[in-house]
């Protein structure tokens, strides 16, 4: 097992770091305070090829392998301080583009992938409902078939990218008697009759990623916009969650590496009681623990990427990786803030924002508690 990056992967990661440092960090703090999404940064990422990283060249993508994608995402996480933007891009790739690529018909791929890959369209998926969060399959959103159309009725909540999305993958019940297998997925364009989006929701962190409510009121969707067969919704959802849990958290690993570098530098420069604070074990031990969490997070991430690259399923491994990285990121953000003391707590530096952003990782893509349920269930409990 060799998890080291090839020369090409390492160079691509480095170029992602340089690109994001140079291009994506202007005005981040101000945008975050206002809860503003940066379309300009989105477009620059698209020019660099981020939105099409794992997509085939025939749809305008870079056609990169999964390990290269993860390395690039790690690089972006290291260089870009706009976590909301990165979350937005990851949602777009793993919960919209990837399922269309995997489950879509040729016509669906031809219509939707080129604008999504080029970044001219923004995508997302709509699963969560006001009363169906962790218990996602208890959804009440219904899709009824009449002739060659489906009519969808229901409300979706906390939908990433919804206020700016051109297309959403909407999950709805098509056969209530079939339990989890009675769900189907629909590609819904923002211009379809009956879909509307509420105003952006105010959240604690990731404030530059627009989140909203989606209302489907007799939303009319042509049959050819059903993704996969009827009843394939749960397979599509599980597949996209496994990919998201495997890849999205690469940006967290990158951010953890940046925070660690900043803490080491600060611990060497900041003098108290006549010596650098890093000479105190209470500080140096915190930094050592941050390094351990980073190292193990990276290993978990690369192991999942390696499994996915070989075409294997990774339900336990992706849950372990998602759980460990998201929890480690929060722990490291807390330590980074503590090491920087009042400066860390102030809004002048990024540490308080990083902490607010990091907490979201314990909730989206399945809460930490749900990851533990998945792991224990696979262990026969």
């Amino acid at each position, binding site marked *: 097992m060799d998890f080291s990056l090839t020369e090409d992967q390492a160079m691509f990661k480095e170029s992602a770091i340089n690109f994001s440092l140079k291009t994506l960090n202007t005005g981040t703090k101000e945008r975050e305070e206002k809860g503003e999404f940066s379309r300009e940064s989105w477009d620059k990422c698209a020019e660099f090829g981020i939105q099409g990283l794992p997509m085939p060249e025939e749809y305008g993508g870079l056609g990169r392998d999964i390990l290269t994608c993860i390395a690039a995402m790690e690089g972006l996480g290291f260089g870009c301080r706009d976590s909301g933007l990165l979350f937005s891009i990851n949602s777009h790739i793993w919960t919209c583009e990837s399922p269309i690529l995997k489950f879509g018909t040729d016509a669906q791929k031809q219509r939707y992938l080129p604008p999504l890959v080029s970044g001219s369209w923004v995508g997302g998926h709509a699963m969560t409902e006001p009363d169906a969060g962790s218990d996602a399959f208890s959804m009440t959103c219904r899709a009824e078939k009449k002739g060659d159309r489906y009519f969808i009725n229901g409300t979706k909540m906390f939908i990433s990218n919804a206020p700016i999305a051109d297309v959403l993958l909407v999950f709805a019940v098509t056969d209530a008697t*079939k*339990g989890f*297998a009675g769900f189907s997925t629909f590609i819904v364009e923002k211009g379809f009759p009956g879909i509307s989006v509420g105003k952006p929701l105010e959240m604690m962190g990731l404030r530059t990623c627009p989140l909203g409510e989606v209302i489907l009121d007799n939303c009319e969707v042509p049959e050819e916009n059903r993704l996969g067969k009827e009843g394939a919704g749960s397979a599509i959802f599980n597949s996209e969650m496994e990919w998201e849990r495997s890849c999205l958290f690469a940006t967290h690993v990158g951010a953890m590496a940046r925070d660690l570098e900043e803490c080491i530098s600060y611990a060497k420069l900041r003098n108290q009681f006549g010596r650098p604070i890093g000479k105190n074990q209470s500080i140096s031990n915190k930094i050592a623990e941050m390094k351990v969490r980073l190292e193990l997070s990276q290993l978990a991430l690369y192991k999942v990427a390696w499994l996915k690259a070989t075409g294997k399923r990774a339900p336990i491994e992706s849950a372990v990786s998602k759980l460990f990285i998201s929890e480690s990121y929060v722990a490291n953000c807390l330590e980074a803030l503590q090491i920087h003391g009042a400066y860390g707590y102030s809004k002048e530096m990024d540490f308080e924002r990083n902490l607010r952003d990091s907490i979201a990782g314990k909730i989206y893509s399945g809460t930490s508690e749900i990851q533990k349920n998945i792991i224990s269930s696979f262990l026969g409990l």
Partner: protein
Amino acid sequence: MHIHGTLEKLLLSEIATDSGKESLDPDEDLLEHGMLDSMAIMKLIVRLEETFSMTIQDEEIIPENFQSLNSMVRFIEDKTKKQ
């Protein structure tokens, strides 16, 4: 017969452990009766791939292939023949 028996045992001993049953009606609708939920199907897919040395595509995880013991047996037979 071999697939049927192995699958029934796997379902009752590892997947639908709360069913309290000792055998399954081959045509019983496992989805309607709630014996297979979203977590159970993830585990079942992994175990089927291991047990029958096969690869199941995500797009094959649809009700018609997993509705009953008989539909699963047909699905596995078709897959293993093709492989």
